[in-house]
């Protein structure tokens, strides 16, 4: 029973934290107090549920417990709180016909307000919306816990004193504000998908936080094509999660991955979402990225990958989202379509781009083209360069293996 309760509480924490916390904020108008009360509610669940059983609707139970705790504290501390700045929110009674009336959306838009820096938006979203502890957020972004705690405290103070409103933006600002939220979700995902530093390739906690955020946004704003496209992208990429590293811990390239183990359920969900997004709106950045992932997901084997289609999609993407990194990826796709010399020629102009000066994947891509062309010495130099720029240990091991391989051929 205790194990079962512990699992139920853990699951409710993962799935319902945002709902419980956001509803409590509405009452307290103060993030710190709401955090305290939400944590209390989960602690109370651990004590009460073994005796009284797991409630049929855990989120409702937890919300009631957190709000009761808040009311209790508010009554006791009424005089003290008069001096604190409270969150700015509309007093209007929520109207049921307003589909965007959800406290979780208020919370997300507040955490991702443009008056907060991008890294602050990310930290607040992980802490307040996903319910990660400060220690977990600090670990994810490789900063000391004290630094992360200070950043989060400062951000909460700025929200209160500058009165960043606890509100879903008006329709004329919604698209732009959704864009900022999606960038936060995407950055959380990419940071988790290939950890910038460390012993493991993936930070599963961040990947899962990003996907659950995207799912929540999609649930709350189902007609937003941009959200559907981002969720599709994340699911299509994550479908390959289990096949990216071998049993012995070696990095497996897309060409080496065991496609039978790709998650078909996630792929068909992603393709469905993408199809729906494309029906609603002309392709956007995330939709095109998802389309590229879908081409890979649907290719029965590596050899049957439709590289012309992929190059064509990168051509569309560079129009929508001009970036030297898109150019690099397009060059790699051209290399697969037209051969390594064509790829090498396409990425040549990128070598002078200062934005890619310390970008390890440019060196790694160049090294691989040179390796295929059996230009062993320049290939070795390029692998060495990639190694000095890479801090993820799984990627380093892969590059070191390739370097040894080309050095064996190289006269030097």
């Amino acid at each position, binding site marked *: 029973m205790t194990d079962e309760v512990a699992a139920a509480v853990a699951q409710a924490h993962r799935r319902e934290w945002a709902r419980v916390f956001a509803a409590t904020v509405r009452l307290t108008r103060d993030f710190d107090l709401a955090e305290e009360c939400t944590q209390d509610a989960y602690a109370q669940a651990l004590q009460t549920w073994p005796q009284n059983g797991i409630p049929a609707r855990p989120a409702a139970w937890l919300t009631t417990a957190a709000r009761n705790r808040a009311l209790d504290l508010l009554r006791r501390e009424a005089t003290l709180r*008069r001096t604190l700045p409270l969150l700015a929110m509309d007093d209007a009674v929520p109207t049921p016909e307003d589909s965007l009336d959800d406290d979780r959306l208020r919370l997300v838009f507040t955490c991702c307000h*443009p008056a907060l820096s991008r890294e602050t938006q990310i930290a607040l979203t992980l802490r307040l919306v996903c319910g990660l502890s400060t220690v977990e957020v600090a670990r994810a972004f490789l900063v000391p816990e004290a630094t992360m705690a200070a950043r989060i405290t400062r951000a909460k103070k700025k929200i209160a004193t500058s009165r960043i409103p606890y509100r879903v933006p008006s329709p004329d600002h919604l698209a732009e504000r959704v864009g900022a939220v999606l960038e936060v979700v995407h950055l959380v995902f990419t940071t988790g998908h290939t950890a910038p530093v460390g012993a493991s390739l993936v930070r599963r906690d961040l990947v899962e936080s990003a996907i659950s955020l995207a799912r929540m946004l999609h649930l709350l704003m189902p007609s937003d094509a941009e959200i559907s496209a981002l969720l599709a992208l994340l699911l299509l990429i994550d479908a390959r999660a289990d096949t990216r590293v071998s049993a012995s811990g070696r990095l497996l390239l897309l060409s080496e991955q065991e496609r039978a183990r790709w998650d078909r359920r996630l792929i068909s969900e992603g393709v469905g979402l993408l199809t729906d997004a494309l029906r609603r709106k002309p392709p956007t950045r995330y939709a095109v990225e998802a389309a590229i992932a879908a081409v890979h997901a649907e290719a029965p084997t590596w050899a049957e990958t439709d590289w012309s289609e992929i190059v064509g999609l990168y051509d569309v993407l560079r129009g929508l989202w001009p970036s030297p990194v898109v150019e690099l990826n397009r060059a*790699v796709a051209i290399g697969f379509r037209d051969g390594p010399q064509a790829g090498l020629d396409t990425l040549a102009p990128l070598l002078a781009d200062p934005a890619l000066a310390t970008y390890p994947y440019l060196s790694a891509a160049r090294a691989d083209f040179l390796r295929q062309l059996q230009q062993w010495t320049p290939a070795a130099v390029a692998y060495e360069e990639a190694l000095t720029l890479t801090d993820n240990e799984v990627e380093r091991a892969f590059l070191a293996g390739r370097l040894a391989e080309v050095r064996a051929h190289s006269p030097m």
Partner: protein
Amino acid sequence: MRGDPVKHRIGTDWREMSVQIVEPDVDLGPAFSVEDEKAHPGRHDGRTDMAKYMLLIHGDEQQWGAMTAAERQALEAAHAAFRAAAGSRVIGGEELEPASMGTTLRVDPSGGVLTTDGPFLDTKEALGGYYLLEAADLDEVIALAAQLPEVHGGHSGVEIRPVVNHG
């Protein structure tokens, strides 16, 4: 690595952005890009729950000094339009004489008052003027302040600072 172009893209494409995440205290600055709008009409009137904000207009004084009469006129018309849109939310506001007209007071080593000619901070961008506003929240202020011509001036910008509420 090259063999996994999708991994490339997703794991790394935006690495140039994700790198910013690990910088502990780099403030990327507020990205105000709010379109002009009538900010929440009707909300202001009758709301007692208001806060004060200072709008600090910073810019390159040389460029302000080099404006033609017509440019100057357009600037003043834009400020008049801002004041009309903000209505009773404007509590005060003035244009300031150039920083070189300033006089700064500090303490000298002997504990007396040292008077110096010029601004406190001698920078290329100087404080050129201010407004004191009253508003319900930051979104309302951003929507209004985005109409100020200095936001769109290139060399200039507007900083929004909440005023300390002493209760």
